[in-house]
């Protein structure tokens, strides 16, 4: 090693070979004349065998070759090729749609086949691997996704009207918007409320060991109860409250709907939040506090200028965990009529309409990844500032 001959990057090599296999063997696209009739599936080469197929095959082969003897330069080239491939996928799908869907089929629906899903997944893995090998920053990693996003957006707007997912969305765009809003509102409200409550609880815990023990006991216990069960268990008492307490009924509290969802979300969010705030306040290096006192800072100054800035990254880490968790749990809350994107998932599952399931599940995953990245980088940035 180290003398000219570098060993192959087995990770990229095997991922890319898997890509090639998926591309050449599995079905890429399915076409159905309407929503009810099951579609027929086509492999990539069956649709367009000439240069369009080569358009994707050639870059994949190129990456394989580059990964065989990788140096910095070749890895960069492989990265660029992978970004290109990701951007080419929707364009290829558009072309395939144009070939397969005849103008005489206005209801035709194009489904994305296992080949394309797998390709998308594997190419993203290649991207992660190359980003790590080249030691690119987190924000650079997100920039690498831009060409793909632009390409999808363009294709969806211009050419991919027959895409089943798109058709599903267009059929209920108003519903989608309100579900998305509801989802965000529920998550936001639960996270914000739990932040305030958790801060109070954590401060109380710092004062009294009894509250600390009891608090963590209850919250830990709560966390082990499955979400569906907790949502269910809240139905009865809230239904009772809704029918017996007028002002609660007036603001919309009932067994079904936002109220049990919000309460359960709050309950689940409290544990990670309290734990992180507690740790954040406890684990500031005592030597730092002592020296701050020694310099003559007042209690207030110590808290505001030393404790808080040092604790903030850990608190934001708590917000990150809580938000990601709440986004997933809110989807479950759809079962008790709380609305949100979970509605599409469960309706879709009920009607065996898989595109509708995707319409609910994909945005939820994107939201979770986005929240994770946002708060993750925020806490990282603050931490760097804190230690600098």
């Amino acid at each position, binding site marked *: 090693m180290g003398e000219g001959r570098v060993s192959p*990057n*087995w*990770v990229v090599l095997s991922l890319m070979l898997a890509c090639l296999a998926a591309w050449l063997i599995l079905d890429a696209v399915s076409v159905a004349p309407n929503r009810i009739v099951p579609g027929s599936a086509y492999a990539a080469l069956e649709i367009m065998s000439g240069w369009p197929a080569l358009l994707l095959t050639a870059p994949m082969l190129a990456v394989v070759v580059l990964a065989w003897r990788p140096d910095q330069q070749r890895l960069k080239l492989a990265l660029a090729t992978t970004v290109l491939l990701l951007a080419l996928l929707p364009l290829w799908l558009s072309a395939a749609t144009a070939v397969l869907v005849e103008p005489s089929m206005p209801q035709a629906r194009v489904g994305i086949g*296992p080949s394309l899903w797998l390709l998308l997944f594997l190419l993203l*893995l290649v991207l*992660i*691997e190359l980003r*790590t*090998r080249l030691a690119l920053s987190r924000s650079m990693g997100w920039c690498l996704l831009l060409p793909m996003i632009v390409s999808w957006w363009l294709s969806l707007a211009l050419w991919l009207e027959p895409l089943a997912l798109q058709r599903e969305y267009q059929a209920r765009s108003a519903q989608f918007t309100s579900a998305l809003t509801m989802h965000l509102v529920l998550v936001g409200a639960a996270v914000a409320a739990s932040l305030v409550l958790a801060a109070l609880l954590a401060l109380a815990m710092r004062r009294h060991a009894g509250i600390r023990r009891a608090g963590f006991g209850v919250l830990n*216990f709560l966390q*082990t*109860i*499955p*979400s*569906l*069960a*907790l949502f*269910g*268990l809240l*139905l*009865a008492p809230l*239904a009772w409250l809704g029918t017996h307490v007028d002002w609660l009924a007036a603001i919309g509290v009932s*067994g*079904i709907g936002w109220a049990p969802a919000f309460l359960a979300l709050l309950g689940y969010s409290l544990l990670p939040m309290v734990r992180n705030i507690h740790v954040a306040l406890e684990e500031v290096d005592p030597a730092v506090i002592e020296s701050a006192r020694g310099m003559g800072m007042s209690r207030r100054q110590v808290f505001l200028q030393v404790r808080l800035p040092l604790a903030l990254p850990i608190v934001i880490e708590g917000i990150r965990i809580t938000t*990601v968790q709440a*986004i*997933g*749990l809110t*989807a*479950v809350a759809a*079962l*008790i009529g709380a609305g949100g994107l*979970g509605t599409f*998932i*469960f309706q*879709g*599952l*009920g009607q*065996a309409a*898989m595109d509708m*399931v*995707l319409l*609910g*599940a994909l945005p*939820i*995953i994107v939201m*979770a*990844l986005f*929240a*994770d990245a946002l708060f993750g980088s925020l806490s990282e940035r603050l931490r760097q500032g804190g230690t600098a």
Partner: protein
Amino acid sequence: MKPGSLLARHVAPVPTSRRWLVPMAWFILLLMLSAGMGQLEWLFRLVEPDVREVIYRRAGFFALLGQHVMVVGVASLLAVLLGVGGAIAVTRPAGRDFLPLVSQLASIGQTFPPVAVLALAVPALGFGTLPIVVALLLYGLLPIVRNTLAGIDGIDPDVHEAARGMGMTAGEVLRQVELPLAAPVIIAGIRTSVTVNIATAALGATVGASNLGDPIIAGIVNGNTAYIVQGALLIGLLAITVDSVFERLQPASQA
């Protein structure tokens, strides 16, 4: 470091019989409730005075509990085998190339909501038990892989060097040093995995599997709170039983 307390931990552990008292109690409660839910009809009558049927009877609670445990058990067992095995593989010299990708994948994957994973398994695999097992397996893998990696990575490199320097083979280092030292972290990962899977499996009722989620879904659909309470109680008890077993199983961290 208080050597006294450490000594106490090693020399005088809680007697085995007493240690398992709490999980046993939860377990017995779970069994009793599964068997004798019918006896509690009067209680559920109080919750739902107006409906015709207050006890869920489409399937026996024992059968539902069995199904639930079965699905979670199979998925978790496979997840442990694959997860621990995979994490060990990528920490060996031969598999080390894959370590960065696997560890990043495990942490990114954990941000995927379990419901979404379950929902995506259905289009890929159809309805029934299979997509649930696969979804639980995939989702359950992540905390196990992540914790196994963290556990092995957290071992003092000097301990590792000493083990090799003393002439332990790679297998001996793995079995006698790495795995025992990483065990507390690995078990914590398995605990997270199983707990989440018990909750997620309940959602399987929406994709055609029959398990303890069934009464809840049926209750929500029919507006019958008694059904919901029955399902919720049993799932909650199952989760708590399993969790308390793991709590006892988890050895004190040695690191």
